[in-house]
């Protein structure tokens, strides 16, 4: 097994408490099964797929037939199903309850989305089939594009980015392209972003050769307009703002901000991660935004899938629309066509961001969600999301410490001052939430708030479930403040499939793959536990 580093300084992963549970022979705990790696389960001679014997043909491989084994383990179908079923039972998920991860919008993932994505004639199309054989697919993409443009009040949308960060790259590249067209790319090298911005914002700007300068916030947690105006100048290419911002607050001076930015000859990139708060009630186009990426996996319910896949289409203003990357899906008379690299379009595409057309599977799911909600439902969803966050804020603000005064939008931000002198950190508090049956809220983001706790309930929770969550948070707060519970918190979580994990060890001695030498002799950790 993994060698344990000297942890005598006790920094790594909390306190190890001797388990008071009665040990079992297998190491399992009822439904929680200790699961080996597939490499520890396989046997040669096992295979979970029945394939016909290949006819003997002459090799036409240029003499490069693979010699030796690949090294993959052989399992039967029942074993494969058992393995992944048992693994799945170690995961928390939206399907299990409140998942209050701020800025991630963990809303319900409807199953009708999954059904329509798998329809024959939608899920099984090849992207490069003759255009005449995929007219329905192109119409589907255009329908979604129409919804996104109408909801945001923007004239154009680039559909191909594969995720939010990819969409940021697209939007900032479009800005770079627009600057180049005006001969200003070399002059305008600075991008302004608040310190509360998500890390992808400065990372994207820096990758494109921009220098990132911070815009300070005022005591109300919003962009300091005066400071912004003095930072604007002929060297500024763009600002990157999130609205509502990462503190969960609507930038009340957004129109003055966009005016000042445009007057200075710069562009306004909006990070659309928090669009769920305003969809159906506010159009970013009316706020002066030049481009905004939309996370289909946040606002529009496509499943998070354990970390992906996402989709990040980017709505574009008239100023940036000409630079949208290939491919462009264009209607010609009654028929759809795809304008691909080099094709003549009414613009100057900045290039190509991804092979083929985009995340079609996510388009289908998002469109099904949007059609299910409709314009009336989407507005109601945004209102319920904002209502739920404010409800949580109102119910907790007397015992926890909100970072800012006044109503929030769809997420409630607290700092850790309420834990001062308790010996309990934000991290400890979060780990204790796990034992209570909740995935913790987002921690330590945004960076501008100390020990940040960002809670986004979304519109998908029943009031009773919110009430239980609130009660649990109040109970944890009370225990923390008692001043005698620090050790308990540091030992959390106790009931999860794993206790706190040693991240220092993982980073100092990275083991990123299984090797035969990793496994204990005998290969079976379950047997080892029993011995």
């Amino acid at each position: 097994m993994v060698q344990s580093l000297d942890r005598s300084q006790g920094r790594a992963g909390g306190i190890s408490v001797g388990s008071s549970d009665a040990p079992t022979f297998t190491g399992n705990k009822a439904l929680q099964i200790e699961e080996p790696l597939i490499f520890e389960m396989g046997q040669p001679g096992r295979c979970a797929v029945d394939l016909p014997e290949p006819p003997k043909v002459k090799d036409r491989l240029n003499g490069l037939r693979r010699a030796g084994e690949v090294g993959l383990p052989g399992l039967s179908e029942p074993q494969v199903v058992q393995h992944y079923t048992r693994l799945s039972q170690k995961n928390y998920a939206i399907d299990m309850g409140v998942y209050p991860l701020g800025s991630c919008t963990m809303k319900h993932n409807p199953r009708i989305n999954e059904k329509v994505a798998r329809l024959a004639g939608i899920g099984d199309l090849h992207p490069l089939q003759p255009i005449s054989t995929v007219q329905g697919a192109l119409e589907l993409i255009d329908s979604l594009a129409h919804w996104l443009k109408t909801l945001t009040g923007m004239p154009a949308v680039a559909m191909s980015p594969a995720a939010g960060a990819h969409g940021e790259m697209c939007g900032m590249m479009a800005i770079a392209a627009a600057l180049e067209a005006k001969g200003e790319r070399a002059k305008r090298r600075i991008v302004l972003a608040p310190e509360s911005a998500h890390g992808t914002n400065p990372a994207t700007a820096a990758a494109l050769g921009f220098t990132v300068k911070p815009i300070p916030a005022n005591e109300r947690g919003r962009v300091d307009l005066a400071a912004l105006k003095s930072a604007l100048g002929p060297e500024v290419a763009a600002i990157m703002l999130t609205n509502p911002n990462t503190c969960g607050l609507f930038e009340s001076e957004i129109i003055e901000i966009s005016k000042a930015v445009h007057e200075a000859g710069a562009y306004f990139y909006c990070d659309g991660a928090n669009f769920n708060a305003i969809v159906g009630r506010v159009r970013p186009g009316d706020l002066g935004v030049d481009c905004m990426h939309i996370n289909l996996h946040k606002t529009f319910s496509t499943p998070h899938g354990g970390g992906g896949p996402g989709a990040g289409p980017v709505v574009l203003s008239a100023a940036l629309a000409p630079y949208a990357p290939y491919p462009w899906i264009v209607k010609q008379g009654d028929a759809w066509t795809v304008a691909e690299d080099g094709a003549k379009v009414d613009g100057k595409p900045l290039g190509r961001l991804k092979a083929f057309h985009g995340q079609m599977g996510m388009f289908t799911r998002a469109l099904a969600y949007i059609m299910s909600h409709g314009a009336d439902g989407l507005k109601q969803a945004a209102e319920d999301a904002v209502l739920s966050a404010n409800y949580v804020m109102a119910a907790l603000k007397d015992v926890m410490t909100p970072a800012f005064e006044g109503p929030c939008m769809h997420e409630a931000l607290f700092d850790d001052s309420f834990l001062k002198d308790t010996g309990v950190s934000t991290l400890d508090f979060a780990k204790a939430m796990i034992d209570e049956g909740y995935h913790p809220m987002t921690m330590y983001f945004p960076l501008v708030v100390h020990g940040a706790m960002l809670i986004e309930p979304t519109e998908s929770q029943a009031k009773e479930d919110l009430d239980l969550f609130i009660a649990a948070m109040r109970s944890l707060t009370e225990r923390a403040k008692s001043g005698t519970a620090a050790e308990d918190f540091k030992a959390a979580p106790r009931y999860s499939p794993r206790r706190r994990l040693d991240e220092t060890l993982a980073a100092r001695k990275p083991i990123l793959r299984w090797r035969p030498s990793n496994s204990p002799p005998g290969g079976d950790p379950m047997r080892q536990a029993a011995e």
Partner: protein
Amino acid sequence: MRYLPLTDVDRRDMLARIGAKSVDELFRDVPPSARLGAKVAGLPDHQGELEVERAFQAFAAKNVSPAAAPFFIGAGAYRHHVPATVDYMIQRGEFLTSYTPYQPEITQGTLQYLFEFQTQVTLLTGMEVANASMYDGSTGAAEAVLMANRVTRRHKALISGGLHPHYRGVIQTAARWEGFDAKVGKPDVEGLEDLIASIDKETSCVVVQNPSFFGHVRDFAKLAEACHAAGALLIVVVTEVVSLGLIKPPGEMGADIVVCEGQSIGNGLGFGGPYVGLFATREKYMRQMPGRLVGETVDADGKRGFVLTLSTREQHIRREKATSNICTNAGLCALAFTVHLTLLGEAGFRRLAELNHAKASQLADLLAAVPGVTMLNQSFFNEFTVRLPKPAAPVVEALAAKRILGGLPVSRLIPDDPSVANLLLLAATETATEVGMAPLVAGLKEVL
């Protein structure tokens, strides 16, 4: 509305608790000029599942499904049979609706399958370390070039004319806006390109594809040596990952970074996405890798567990100094890949690869008998290029009118180049049958 649990009573009670008279008060920071009166105009209201399904069936009815026609298109996305188990596993709510494993204590399911996935990718590619997936092969290829630039501190990439044109386009776009040079070779139709002479002391990397876009299978060992002698990295792209079951992997040829499109395993064609990028490299470059990494460790009780690691390279910590701006991996697509590959195992994966090569060989032999069709490949895995006596694009349209999806005219991806106008790219996987090949052959005879 079925997705919204709050009732009007709930909303009233919640507003009372908040101390607001209406939800509009919670939106008071929105400038009045930007407040929409009613809902957004020009869009329909909510619908039930029946209507939504009908709408999508209407979309589907206007498409020709590969299942309904003889099908021979490849070009970077391949039609393979995905065992039924895969979809049932990825549809489990604990996988489908979970998030990035930032709280490892309650996401060991995700972390363990990603660790298994990373291991499988190293085994397939013959490399030492792999990440937890990229968006797809094309963006992975661009990230590989950026990584090579970082490692070598140079910024001139040499791009093979055998690289998929879309991948080339993504790299060129990155070069244009992120500030490096990408020198692209002429389309390598014959599979004879020699890049060694073009490498110099300013080259950061050479990017090749195996099998190439045109299907040729090549040995890059000498190219790898030449790269290393000049201090450059060799990046090998594999768009058909099943080929690794039969062909010498790039790791054994001396590749420094291997990028694959994993779509062929576990993930259907899906009209182009979402797919899954595989990214593997040598251990000495581990800290320069983009994307997520899962590592093994122990928990407070000494039990083996898994965590996201080396995250200080990533954007949420390094911000403007990050190795990449990437925040997500392909998640569920990586799960589909690993489940399918686990079902296949050693025996199944190798047999699948043999079947693919056999089917393509069969097709090649049948086409050899069609007058006017010239096979351009001495070597191939499951895809090859033929030259027709006339432009291929109208031929493919004519075949489509007969409900035959007969390959990809190369001119679709390499337009404005007369030298490739008559070229047709054809793929045959284990899903191709003799019953399907016959109409293609007959159709070609008719149309040519």
